[in-house]
């Protein structure tokens, strides 16, 4: 195994990883290790905007953004983290503009902002224009801009090196193991500080907006190395996935005035969220859609509803609300929602300028993940003991800034704000630390696991396990849940994991670009995380944010205003304990939109 040495290594090259790399590389020797070319990362699929209370279009304050984030998170959000997110969002967006990000502009030449779900004027309760955007490809532009800056600053990249394990020396992280895709060789990256920025695991579900590469590698790796996972029961279903693929249709569509319509032609969100209607938080709207579908009000009796952004419809509803909508023309839609138009035409055969889009809820975003504090330092237990030299940021991390349900645009804010904090803190740590020796058996365990997969001749093809996992999670751990279903899901995941460990068979025994082995290894990560998700969801006997139980319909602050921490005990069993929620100025109250 080839050994490389860097002060700080950053695993993953999406928004959080690249931001961490930019900041860490200013003072220490850094390498970014990514299974994809950086511009392929899933940050690029984020569409509608990045929230920051710039106040360019109307009155806004970061305190309002912080409150909206806490309320959106159904009060499970750690409020110190939400305050940091909202405050630093402003300088983060300005910094992105200085880096060259081509934001859309107002007439005055400032960064243009649009409405998004759950972002409100805290005085009136009405939606506020807070989402800074570059058409509806904001994530694409963030990813491109950060990668451009990394090139400008000569950051070292190991592209298409797939990280498969963390190296620990006792309790101390000392590096990571990666497979070079090109020739299959194993590499040990010896480091003082390790930053996980490896993204989410939407591929646990069948209908998802997530890329094939969103397999939760980092969260599974840290979990296997004795680090807990926090709040795994909270996984967001985005209300508007395209039907039938599940691809994301941005909330920006509704921010611009688009409306949800059921099979009877009703704008049904008026019923569920009278004040903000189609701009309620995502969990609220996904549940409303699930109810409409369950009660037979899908379009033509099918499993989808309509998202209507045609000029006639939008102008009609805007006029009803007393707003002018002269600007809302076909040309305007085509420029502000270009990706949406392309998606509709390519994948649904629908031109959104003249017809409504068919939509359904789609598995979208992990609120939970690797537990960290507000400095992106990974913590080892419910007492928040910091693991020196280990950091996590972005979707793989749980700060927890999103609580039980993330607001739209806050994922991009999270990447920039906490990616930067991770980079700064990791570099600071590396500057003051010495290299700790790699253990003599570094990389051996994962080498033998990869060899097991490469030579596996069992009777079950991995895709069958993946299909079973995805359909089970879809049916039993979805928008609505109950104890019986989740118990069954948990048992299924355990069976699938046993099958994975004992009876898989693959075809590719070679060394060059062996995606058969690595896809199978990724499946192992997904199975692990699906099991933890089902376990944590079954354990939480209340409904909160994205976790809606039919058998416990109410939020229960007395017993459940706390974070779940799940630990692996031995190979088979799981254990849970709890971490308190940090409350600063927003006392929990009932959540109404």
């Amino acid at each position: 195994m080839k050994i490389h040495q860097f002060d700080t290594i950053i695993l993953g090259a999406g928004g959080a990883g690249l931001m961490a790399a930019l900041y860490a590389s200013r003072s220490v020797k850094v390498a970014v290790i990514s299974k994809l070319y950086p511009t392929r990362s899933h940050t690029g699929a984020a569409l509608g905007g990045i929230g920051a209370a710039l106040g360019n279009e109307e009155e806004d304050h970061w305190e309002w953004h912080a409150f909206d984030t806490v309320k959106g998170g159904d009060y499970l959000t750690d409020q110190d983290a939400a305050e940091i997110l909202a405050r630093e969002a402003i300088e983060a967006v300005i910094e992105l503009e200085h880096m060259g990000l081509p934001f859309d502009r107002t007439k005055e030449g400032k960064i243009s902002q649009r409405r998004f779900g759950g972002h409100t004027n805290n005085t009136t309760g009405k939606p506020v224009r807070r989402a800074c955007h570059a058409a509806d490809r904001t994530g694409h532009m963030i990813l491109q801009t950060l990668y451009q800056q990394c090139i400008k600053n000569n950051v070292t990249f190991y592209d298409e090196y797939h990280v498969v394990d963390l190296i620990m020396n006792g309790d101390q992280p000392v590096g990571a193991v990666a497979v070079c895709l090109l020739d299959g060789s194993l590499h040990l990256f010896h480091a003082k500080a390790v930053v996980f920025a490896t993204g989410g695991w939407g591929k646990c579900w069948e209908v998802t907006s997530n890329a094939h590469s969103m397999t939760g590698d980092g969260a599974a790796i840290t979990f296997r190395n004795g680090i807990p996972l926090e709040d795994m029961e909270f996984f967001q279903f985005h209300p508007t996935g395209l039907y039938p693929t599940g691809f994301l249709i941005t909330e920006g569509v509704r921010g611009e005035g688009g409306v949800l319509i059921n099979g009877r032609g009703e704008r049904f969100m008026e019923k569920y969220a009278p004040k903000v209607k189609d701009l309620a938080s995502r969990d609220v709207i996904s549940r409303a859609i699930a109810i409409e579908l369950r009660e037979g009000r899908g379009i033509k009796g099918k499993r989808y509803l309509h998202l209507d952004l045609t000029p006639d419809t939008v102008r009609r509803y805007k006029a009803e609300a007393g707003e002018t909508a002269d600007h809302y023309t076909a040309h305007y839609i085509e420029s502000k929602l270009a990706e949406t138009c392309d998606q509709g035409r390519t994948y649904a055969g629908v031109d959104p300028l003249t017809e409504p889009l068919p939509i359904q809820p789609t598995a979208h975003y992990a609120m939970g993940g690797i537990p960290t504090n507000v400095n992106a330092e990974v913590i080892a237990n419910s007492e928040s003991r910091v693991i020196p030299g280990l950091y996590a940021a972005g979707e793989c991390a749980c700060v927890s800034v999103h609580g039980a349900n993330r607001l739209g645009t806050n994922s991009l804010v999270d990447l920039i704000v906490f990616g930067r904090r991770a980079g700064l803190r990791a570099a600071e740590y590396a500057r003051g630390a010495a290299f700790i020796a790699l253990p003599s058996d570094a990389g051996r365990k994962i080498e033998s696991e990869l060899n097991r997969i490469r030579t596996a001749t069992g009777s079950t093809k991995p895709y069958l396990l993946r299909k079973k996992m995805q359909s089970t999670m879809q049916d039993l751990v979805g928008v609505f849940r109950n104890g019986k279903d989740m118990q069954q899901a948990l048992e299924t995941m355990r069976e699938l994991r046993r099958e994975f460990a004992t009876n898989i068979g693959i075809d590719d025994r070679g060394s060059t670009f062996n995606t058969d082995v690595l896809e199978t290894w990724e499946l192992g990560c997904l199975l692990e995380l699906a099991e933890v998700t089902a376990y944590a969801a079954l354990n939480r006997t209340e409904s909160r944010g994205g976790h809606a139980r039919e058998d416990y319909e109410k939020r229960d602050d007395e017993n459940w205003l706390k974070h779940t921490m799940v630990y692996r005990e031995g190979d088979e069993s799981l254990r849970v304990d709890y971490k308190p929620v940090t409350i600063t100025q927003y006392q929990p109250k009932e959540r109404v939109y």
Partner: protein
Amino acid sequence: MEATIRIRRFNPDKDKKPYWATYTLKDCEPTNRLLELLHRVKWEIDGTLTLRRSCAQGICGSDAMRINGRNRLACKVLLQEFGEKATIQVEPILGLPVVKDLVVDMEPFFAHYRAIMPYLVNETPPPIGEDGKPRERLQTIEARERFDDTTKCILCAACTTSCPSFWANGAYVGPAAIVQAHRFVFDDRDQHLQERLDVLADPDGVWRCRTIYNCTPACPRGIEVTRAIGEVKKAIQTGKRDY
């Protein structure tokens, strides 16, 4: 419906030269993406089939391939366009060394990208707001619109590897790198216009473009690539972005 896929295969671990292999898939839906069909081949029939893919929805740029002779993203091609009993021919994009099956070596492509200074340079201190903190640099809606088209590029290489000038001479930076350069040449916040134009005026820069026009229809993002290259040529000739 049924689909037949003919794939150019090559595994350097065992094959002396590339060959064609044909796979037939039953129970396909007209709305299946070609990427889904390739996955079915890999997952159900032959796990050694190797390709790059990630988002599967046309935004990450991983799965550019030569599909019935045209460069496209496998995730943006639906089976229905080929009609009943379709045969679809799939091969790696041309002009870059084949690593395995549909995977090519992307390093030369990204080296060209890095060479054109793909980053904004502005050394003037940014404006300061009423609260004493930095604010955004102002840009008019029209100035932003000037380079909107080229900001859509996802670096999939479909344009560059459809270009006969690039096939003939791999030292040519290629359409994608020029598209990326265009995005900065025409951004009025940038202050390194002359340095950019000097790089692009190199013998292996824009003048290798013979306006063959293959690149524009190859772009899965609908970017008017040939037009962007023409505008960069004009900027070089005039030394200005507002020629």
